[in-house]
């Protein structure tokens, strides 16, 4: 046996103009349209009210104190630590001190969380609807066409990916069917969108699918009990080993300039 026979298929050149190009153009335009639809559908993020801001920033203050404690002299650090630990343990900075110690309410009943879910729903809808429409369109008009040949060989595993809709077993993997071209553009157009719309566009399906796959991640923050966070931070402050960076700085400086 010499070389395997190279498959040749004579394709009508009109396939390029009437299938490959339309699918690509439609996919790009859908992405742009989706971007603008998402921008319109987006609700402005709700403003936090003052107690919430206070609660959050007070916690950050404690974290700052812990991480940068070494700039303070021991006495002022001790004074601050005593104050912060006590305030944290008393729950002084809590947004609603009444609900302290009670279990968190169901996130479904929280209107703010519902709003976030609505936003996600909208995102999904803006993605699903055009996707299914276009797939239907391609299936109706272009199914079963082999429209292009890849310039490089591939292993047979790619057959299901590249030749969906074409039911021939012996066809070389390098031939791409129209439905597969649709999927390729669906996932591969991100750089094009970046070029047209700027880098933080909403036309990207892939990142949205990533965000969807772990919806908990974005919502864990407000989900946690702030009181627990405060108590945790108080404990961290309690056990902190304080070192003063200004200890012996005079000698350090003298040594630095002597060198």
């Amino acid at each position, binding site marked *: 046996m010499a070389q395997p026979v190279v498959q040749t298929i004579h394709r009508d050149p009109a396939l390029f103009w009437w299938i490959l190009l339309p699918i690509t153009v439609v996919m790009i335009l859908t992405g742009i349209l989706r971007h603008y639809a998402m921008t319109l559908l987006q609700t402005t993020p709700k403003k936090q*009210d003052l107690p919430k801001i206070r609660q959050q920033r007070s916690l950050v203050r404690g974290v700052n104190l812990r991480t940068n404690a070494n700039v303070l002299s021991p*006495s002022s650090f001790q004074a601050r630590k005593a104050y912060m630990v006590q305030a944290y343990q008393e729950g002084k900075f809590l947004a609603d001190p009444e609900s302290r110690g009670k279990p968190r309410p169901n996130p479904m009943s929280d209107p703010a969380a519902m709003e976030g879910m609505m936003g996600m729903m909208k995102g999904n809808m803006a993605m699903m609807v055009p996707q299914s429409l276009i797939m239907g369109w391609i299936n109706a008009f272009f199914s079963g066409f082999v429209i292009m040949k890849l310039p490089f060989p591939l292993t047979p595993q790619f057959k299901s990916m590249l030749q969906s809709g074409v039911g021939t077993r012996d066809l070389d993997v390098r031939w791409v069917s129209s439905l597969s071209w649709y999927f390729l553009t669906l996932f591969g157009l991100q750089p094009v969108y970046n070029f047209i719309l700027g880098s933080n566009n909403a036309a990207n399906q892939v990142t949205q699918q990533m965000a969807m796959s772990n919806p908990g991640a974005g919502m864990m923050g407000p989900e946690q009990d702030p009181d627990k966070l405060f108590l945790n931070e108080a404990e961290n402050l309690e056990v902190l080993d304080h070192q003063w960076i200004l200890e012996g700085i005079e000698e350090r400086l003298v040594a630095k300039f002597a060198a």
Partner: protein
Amino acid sequence: MSQVNLLSPPSHISPDTARKLSLKAPLILSHPPTSSLPWPLSLLFSRETPESWTIHENLFYSSLRTGDETSARQILERMEARFGDQNERIITLRGIYNESIAQSNADLERVFDGYEKILREDPTNMSVRKRRVAVLKALGRTQDAITAVTVLLQNSPTDVEAWAEASELYASQGAWGQAIYCAEEVLLVMPNAWSAHAHIATLHYLSTASNSPPSLPALALSLKHFCRSIELNDSYLRGYYGLKLITSKLISVLSDSASASNKRGNNQDDDEVPIPKIATVKKLEEIATSKLGEIVRNASSGKTGWTGYDQAELIAARELLDGGGKIER
């Protein structure tokens, strides 16, 4: 000094720079970033970028500084047309404009009442809260300003700007303890800001000015902070100036206390601020003197790499060197 532009102006703008910046107003005003064409075309032909609005905002500030209120008004109107007059930043900018065109205290009071009204509607508008403090300060009601800034800090305790402002306000009232506390909060957020270290050091130093045998721990702390600011930035003129001032004072105090007796030293054993050894202080003074001399010499001869120092600071440093530390601030 590097080329000044409107996109990223330096944090401290000298009057000269502000004038240069505001001279760009006519050019920018004659080229609106938004297009005047009808809707679909305007999308295609606008030259609008996020930067163009940053430039507008900075131009607004520098025109107000140079008293070019007509340009400021035009810029403000353009921004209002673009972002709507309910935008938080636009509200603040309009407030700044109203403050700067206020002719009398009564006008300022009116601006202040406007801020109160805004805050009743939206208590989370931090920048308006800050403007409110500024107006109170301008009206000379320092106590009220302190109260306002403490309320702001209770609600937003990570705001460096506000802590620094509170520190200044307390210092102007001579409440050194509170001023130092606030300055330390600034350091907690920005631990490596040499200017913040120098600020604390200055406060510690000023706090010793009132009591006649200056308290050694405060002086020692001041010395430490000045040392730290120099360690962080070894061409920091203000740090060297302070270091020289403190060391010369410390030398006299230390030699006094050493000759008096050792019981003073015994008293301070339980104090946790270690008093520096007089030999170290002397060495530090030499360092400060030589570095100050170097900076003054090189900066006034305009050597490359030595520019960018504030003229007033250079003059003060030269006076300190000539006067041998007799200047009291």
